């Protein structure tokens, strides 16, 4: 019993070092894999992962659970860091410099491990950062093969709303896999 039982939202809300460390453990592999798939560059993926968590650490007091899941919030930061890196051609380090975190050099084993993460396209990793209603809709329709009608009935909403959630969720997943939006 303890931090392991807490939701990501609770971990961020606490604001202490141990809670943030648990939040990091919950997401680091998925995020590193996300960056590795999108960049196909272990060094860049590692830099972006470090910068995203550093930015999340400095911004965690501004996270509002009512605006979305903590995973979606983290991936929102990740998308911006990735877009900035693609625009500039390198990963920025301003959040790490603010926290006085030095750049970590990768070993050969690190590079190999990040390469393996890049090849892991499991559904759970890819839908992790989606907004909860999109994640549930994608899992129900795509993974569990339930019809739109069935999902809409279970959620008490319309088929059109479920279709929209699945469509947007899949669009985000495709982008994370490196495909076109």
């Amino acid at each position: 019993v303890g931090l392991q039982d807490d939701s990501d939202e609770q971990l961020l809300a606490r604001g202490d070092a141990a809670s943030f460390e648990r939040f990091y453990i919950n997401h680091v592999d998925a995020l590193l894999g996300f960056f590795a798939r999108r960049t196909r560059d272990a060094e860049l993926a590692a830099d972006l992962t470090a910068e995203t968590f550093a930015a999340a650490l400095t911004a965690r007091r501004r996270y509002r659970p009512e605006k979305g899941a903590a995973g979606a919030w983290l991936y929102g930061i990740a998308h911006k860091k990735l877009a900035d890196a693609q625009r500039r051609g390198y990963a920025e380090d301003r959040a790490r410099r603010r926290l006085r975190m030095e750049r970590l050099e990768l070993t050969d084993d690190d590079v190999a491990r990040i390469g393996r993460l890049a090849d892991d396209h499991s559904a759970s990793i890819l839908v992790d950062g989606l907004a909860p209603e999109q994640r549930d809709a994608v899992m129900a329709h795509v993974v569990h093969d339930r019809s739109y009608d069935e999902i809409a009935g279970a959620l008490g909403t319309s088929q059109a709303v479920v279709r929209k959630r699945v469509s947007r969720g899949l669009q985000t997943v495709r982008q994370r896999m490196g495909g076109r939006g």
Partner: protein
Amino acid sequence: MTEDFTDRLRLQLRRAALGEERRGALSRRPVAVRPRPSFAVAAFASAAAAALLLVVTLWLLGSRENEPAVPAGPRVVANVRLADALGGEADAGFGSLWLSESQEGQILRVDPSTRRVTARIPVGDEAAIATGDGSVWAVPRGAVKHGDPVLRIDPRTGRTVARIAQRTPAGEPFDGGFIIIGPRVWVLGSSGAIAIDPATNRVVREIRLGGGYLVVDALLRGRQLWLITSDRRITRFDARTGRRLGRVSWRTTGFLLPFADKLVAVSKGSVALLDPATGKAAWRTRLGTELHDARVNGSRVFVEGADGATARERVWQLDARTGRVAGVVTMPEFGPAGMVPVVSGVWLLTSGGHAVDVQP
């Protein structure tokens, strides 16, 4: 056993989080616990400070005649807190600045002369903003919302007068992240762009780039829309029809800003003025250790970036015609997220909600 990258990063973050905790605890300490000097000591200190100020003032007045004119360089003329958090997106138009407040999901209308918020327009998320065609245009682009309608806002009333679904003319969903206004209102996304006709508020064109590379940047050059993909290639399109005009023969190494008939190119450690036809540099100036953002205002280029290992970002001011550095100023706030040209300089917007006014 050696620790892998994720373990080493975890330990780094733990140290940083503990440091943040300590800093937070110190900053929350009540002011009353600070020892106060006795009245006599305080009075003596005040008198000494006043005397010193007088001496310095007289010395400055006396020596000014012999000094050369101070070269124009950037300086921080104001540092105001406008919100709890600001996104990097902003634009100037209709006598105001329009900034994205990222905490509540609002667009802030700010009077640049008083630096006060004069209106708050709810949009539900951080948003990309552009002004033109008599309107303020916004597209949500935060962590929560993707693919939501483009909002057209009346700048006089602050009311949303149109919500335009992000769909291609064929009805496919589109997920735009920023806006450029030319002959059409172009909403740019990672797969291409859609064009809105401001006369009808309808999506009338789509640009879909082939290949596996995402669109990472765009700019308007006259009647041409240039889309830059993650392989650093640039493809030109007609800004009205969306017709493909061809590729530029050179690749960019950073991001580009229009200046007169040239381009200012900002890469990791340098700024250059490029000929758009050839990509050749008329000048190139090396700056700092990592450059993050830049804006052109008149004939000046303001560049924000890092210089060495210091935590604070800096802002350099360059002459866009020659590349000469007029000066540099250190940012008083952490976390610059964006820049917007204001008067002769720029405002730097920080993730902590500050606007730092830097002027020549």
